[in-house]
């Protein structure tokens, strides 16, 4: 049976998405960074970011979304896994056991105190891993339909 095709191009969605997209990406980063103290975190942030790219896919087409991401989503998965795994290592160098959280705080002249930590690095890894996974599935399905 021939699959039914819907023409999903709509002017409203198109315009709306180009306004929403940067905001959504920014929001996902916001969620990622505030996650340690307020609702949010790498997983949620990753889902928002993935949804943003998926929005682009529906508003325009597969190619546009693919070009927006620039890299293959599987590469994001790989980078995420590496970052998360690397985050487990620093404590070994200061004689603590594997995966013990390490915190460093930096005093920046204008922004004030900046707290860096291995959990943050880990969360960024989760963030990228989630984006990569969701988009791999979305893109693969979209591509299968595309071809």
């Amino acid at each position, binding site marked *: 049976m021939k699959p039914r095709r819907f023409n999903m191009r709509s002017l409203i969605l198109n315009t709306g998405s180009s306004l929403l997209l940067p905001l959504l990406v920014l929001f996902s980063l916001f969620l990622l960074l505030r996650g340690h103290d307020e609702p949010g975190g790498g997983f*949620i942030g990753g889902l928002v970011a993935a949804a943003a790219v998926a929005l682009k896919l529906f508003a325009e087409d597969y190619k546009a979304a693919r070009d927006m991401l620039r890299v293959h*989503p599987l590469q994001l998965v790989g980078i995420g896994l590496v970052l998360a795994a690397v985050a*487990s290592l620093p404590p070994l160098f200061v004689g603590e056991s594997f995966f013990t*959280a390490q915190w460093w705080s930096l005093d920046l002249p204008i922004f004030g105190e900046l707290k860096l930590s291995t959990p943050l690095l880990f969360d960024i890894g989760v963030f990228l891993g989630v984006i990569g996974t969701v988009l791999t*599935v979305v893109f693969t399905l979209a591509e*299968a339909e595309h071809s």
Partner: protein
Amino acid sequence: MLIAVLSCFILACFAPWLHRLGGRHSGWLLALLPATLFAYFASMLPTISQGQSLQFAYAWFPGMGIQLSFLVDGLSLLFALLITGIGFFILAYGGRYLEKHKDLGRFFVFLLGFMGSMLGVVLSDNLISLFVFWELTTVTSFMLIGFNHEQEDARKKAHQGLMITVMGGLALMTGFIMLGMAAGSYELSTILNSDGLTEHALYLPMLLLILLGAFTKSAQAPFHFWLPNAMAAPTPVSAYLHSATMVKAGVYLLARLNPGLGGTDTWLLMLTLFGALTMLTGIFLASRATGVKKVLAYSTVMALGTLTMLLGLGTETAALAAVTFLLAHALYKGALFMVAGILDHSAGVKDFTQAGGLRHSMPKTTVVAVLASLSLAGIIPLFGFVGKELLLEAVLSASKWHIGLTIATVIANILVVLVAAIVALQPWFGAVVETPKKPHDPDIALLIGPAVLATLGLVFGLMPFIADKGLLAAAAGAVYGQPVELYLALWHGINLPLMLSLSSLLLGLLLFKVWSGWRQLTNFMHSAEKIGPEVVYERLMLGMTQFAAWQTNTLQNGYLRNYLITTLGTVIIVVGWALLRVNQLELNISFQDMRVHEVAIAVLLIFSALIAVLVRSFLAAVAMLGALGFGVALLYVFFSAIDVGITQVLVETITVLLLVLVLYRLPEFRSLSSTANRIRDAIIAGMTGLLMTILILAITGARQLEGISDYFLQNSGPLGHGRNIVNVILVDFRALDTLGEIFVLALVAIGVYAMIHLRTGALPVTNSDRRAAFNLRRTQKDKAKADAKAEADASAVASKGEE
């Protein structure tokens, strides 16, 4: 000590580069390590020969009480010296033997890795680390048997050796855990000194499991067949792993555990029975074989059986006989295997019937071969003689079945003499036979190993007190459990053992005269092999794959509904049974503190679920499921799990997106299943829902242990530097779990990617395919760009035209 063991692995990592650096002499270069280690272990000799032992311990998993501890006593030092000493010659020999092989670097990697693992096995004081090293020897042995991995035969035989030893390894691990539980410690030094192990309730199962591990490793009948098949490995490997060291790991283990587990009737029965059986099977098959390596391999099986039998006897004489026989065997068998390699390398001879009169062209090799064979035959004044006399003495003085064991040993000895005569005489003397290659004595790298080992057999034979006082007494003491009072001597006077050896010598030589007749006479073995253990093994393997195929077809039949039925049905039965038995279903349900909005959400949930089931359109069903999900998210929010709520909302959103992408692909909505099927599905679905409801009510109603949420509430600030407990748990407290989860996510992504691309046939398979696909995509992209540009230009022109 730790460095000594690890250095082999470290050197193994660098071996391919060192090999390139060393060129033709890389074998000698790498052999420097075993030489150094040999010197290191030899420096312990004065301490150990006085009957003392050394212990070294390093923290490994301090949290689990597992430490990396090493024990050096007579027994482990004897093995360590054999491993490093013979290892030295093997590396030099292997470097020359495989000089032209393209994968020589890889060969060194595995050989050095094996050396480290084997040292680990014999030096470990901890059962767990012993087991880890034990398995490492299995893995390296697999890689070495299958070294010529382009030959199907080598792969098959490597696989066979692996399967059998891994099966034994699993049994061994279980046995070790039982042993550790029974003794209350995993340290061998503690276990062997603890009393009452043999009366423990777990004694029989753990003994049988450990024996299974040791028997498979040391190729005891009926598992003996993998060892001759392992001869698919290059000859240096056969000489090292499959005669002098690895196959003795099982024997080592039995010797090591003898003071703790030995001495019972079961031990005596199992070891002597299987040992004697293996001894006879091995030597009988050796006497029938004609392939050079086959003969030697089967005679190794015989030696392993003999050692097991001696360890089963467990007397003082038997302990001394075992270590003496072990050393003698390692010396002559290592030498003979290397001679076998020389025969192949320098004359192209792989079968005893293909050779003759080689003494003219290979005089030096002939001397070495004869010397080693004399030791094999147990002829005075070689060290093999000392070992054989002790063996006969031990079986004659056995506490049980000494007549049967003596007869078996004498028969074995007659055939050993036959085998020794074949090895010592057949290729070297008699009429010259044309060989595939022009025979010549090999260069020193190949000859020095067997020459030194064979000479040592003579030196120890003439002056047995060197070996005895030096090490064997201490080794026998470690096997026996207390210092042995006996000593080694070449000449015991004219006694029963001597008479028995003389008569077996004569009979063996007579048999050699009629060797081809003997082979014809025993031809019935051909038909016997059709029901032998190897056939059983192959049937089992075939049966296993057939069972796997049947099980896959039944359980994984590709229908999602059947998967669901299987999974949910199992859950209902297993969880439901446990729930009924353990909890007796005391549910406290109260509707008192319910609030209006909660009721509203519950009603919404129930309705959307019902509609999702009843509605007759995909899109509507998806929408209803979405509503269900958002309702659940609302519940989370009301119960102040905001993070979970947000996640649920996002997941629902993305699920809807994915479903929309998939919906195109689905056929039209139709009911295809029969009413009976639908009733069955409804029952399973209903029971699952009911079970989950009861389960959750039971869990919340019967919380017995204190929740851990208080700990997280109190510590997420001070320890985790965060106020959002959910996130602190995810990225800090339980970060390892999260890491595992994102790895699972990654696998899902790869799985979806691979499956869909496989279906559409767009998955790049090889590197060249990938490159082609990439180029194609790039040209398409360029073309698209060019098209777009052309179009833009055209429209620009057009718009200009309009102006």
